[in-house]
């Protein structure tokens, strides 16, 4: 097959393709919709245990860190599908995730009630909220990301999963608040880490080059 022939075919069959909005814009749009969905879900589920006495400023500090992580991770995911774009969002997202982890660890250490972690069987509800509640968000995000270039599928998928899981985690925390952050660290943190690693592994199945067939002679 001749390259000139391919060029002619591509030019002849060309259809308009409006440039995608900037990565930050797309991330903001997705995040706004996702935040509304999670808020509605959390309110719809109701506050399962009511607000315990231990919920204070530390609780909200952890939630703010998770929200910032989610926003920056989504920006990193959107930027990763734009060829030639600086990857400054990636370190920012990683730093935000690290700060979130530090906040969780610091507040967990203050709680020191680690014995409650293994016996907190009601945490499966939170796991369900993050996984099931986050699934539609991940589907929407993956569809938006597939409009870009699959330059680094594992990275794109990992940041997408981190963004979704971090935000769904906030919904779960608000819907079922824990006075003990050690539980949040172990259960929520574990689910988010697993989701991120699993997404990175499945990235090439989600994001791959979908090329038009080459013209054949004949």
């Amino acid at each position, binding site marked *: *097959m001749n*390259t000139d022939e*391919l*060029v*002619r075919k*591509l*030019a*002849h069959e*060309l*259809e*308009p*393709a*409006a*440039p*995608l909005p*900037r990565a930050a814009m797309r991330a903001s749009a997705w995040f706004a919709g996702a935040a509304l969905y999670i808020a509605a879900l959390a309110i719809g589920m109701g506050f399962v245990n009511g607000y315990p006495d231990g919920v204070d400023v530390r609780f909200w500090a952890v939630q703010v860190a998770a929200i910032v992580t989610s926003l920056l991770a989504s920006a990193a995911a959107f930027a990763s*599908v*734009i*060829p*030639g*774009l600086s990857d400054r969002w990636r370190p920012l997202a990683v730093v935000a995730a690290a700060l979130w982890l530090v906040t969780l660890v610091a507040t967990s250490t203050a709680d020191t009630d680690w014995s409650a972690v293994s016996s907190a069987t009601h945490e499966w509800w939170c796991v369900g909220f993050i996984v099931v509640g986050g699934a539609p968000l991940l589907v929407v995000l993956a569809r938006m990301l597939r*409009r*870009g*270039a699959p*330059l680094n599928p594992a990275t794109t998928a990992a940041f997408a999963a981190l963004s979704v899981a971090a935000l769904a985690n906030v919904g779960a925390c608000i819907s079922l608040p824990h006075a003990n952050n050690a539980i949040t660290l172990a259960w929520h943190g574990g689910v988010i880490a697993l989701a991120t690693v699993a997404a990175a592994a499945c990235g090439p199945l989600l994001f791959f*080059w*979908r*090329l*038009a067939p*080459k013209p054949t002679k004949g």
Partner: protein
Amino acid sequence: MTTSDSPLDTLGDLMRAAQQGDGVAYARLLRTITPRIRQVVRRQRGFVGEAEVEDLVQEVLLSVHAVRSTYDPSRPFEPWLTAILRNRLVDGARRYGRIARREVKVDDLDVTFSELEAKEESADLSDAAALREAVRALPEQQRKAIELLKLKELSLKEAAQVSGTSIGALKVATHRAMATLRMSLGKRRE
């Protein structure tokens, strides 16, 4: 200031027009970038044949086409194209590696007449897998010389340009490589 008839002076402008559906601008853009892509592919994948080079070039063009909406007209075109090109070359190299590990080329295997009765040196070389292994075991410079002169069948002048070495050095490397190959294939037969 340019006196060109067309206001589309840069690759970025051509791509912007293509995003709006201008097929003529798109054809011009693709024809402009194709030789550049081919040059990079040849430089990076000097060990593959011309057909594979062209295959990679076409794959890059199809990739550019598939994600043309990701080009932001307010940004330079070159980094955008380079990122796609680099990504497709890495993918191509992975694929090439996978194929090379799995497959044994059988182009030279005889169907009608056995090569075993022919020249003894040719008999040694008919074992494609053993030959490939022996070539792989050669020192870098000798392997490059064999790939360029014997496998790609470039002239000494072309091979010297591609490898960045002198013709004399290429001749020496080829001579030594052939001697090493004869020896290693000979041992294998024994």
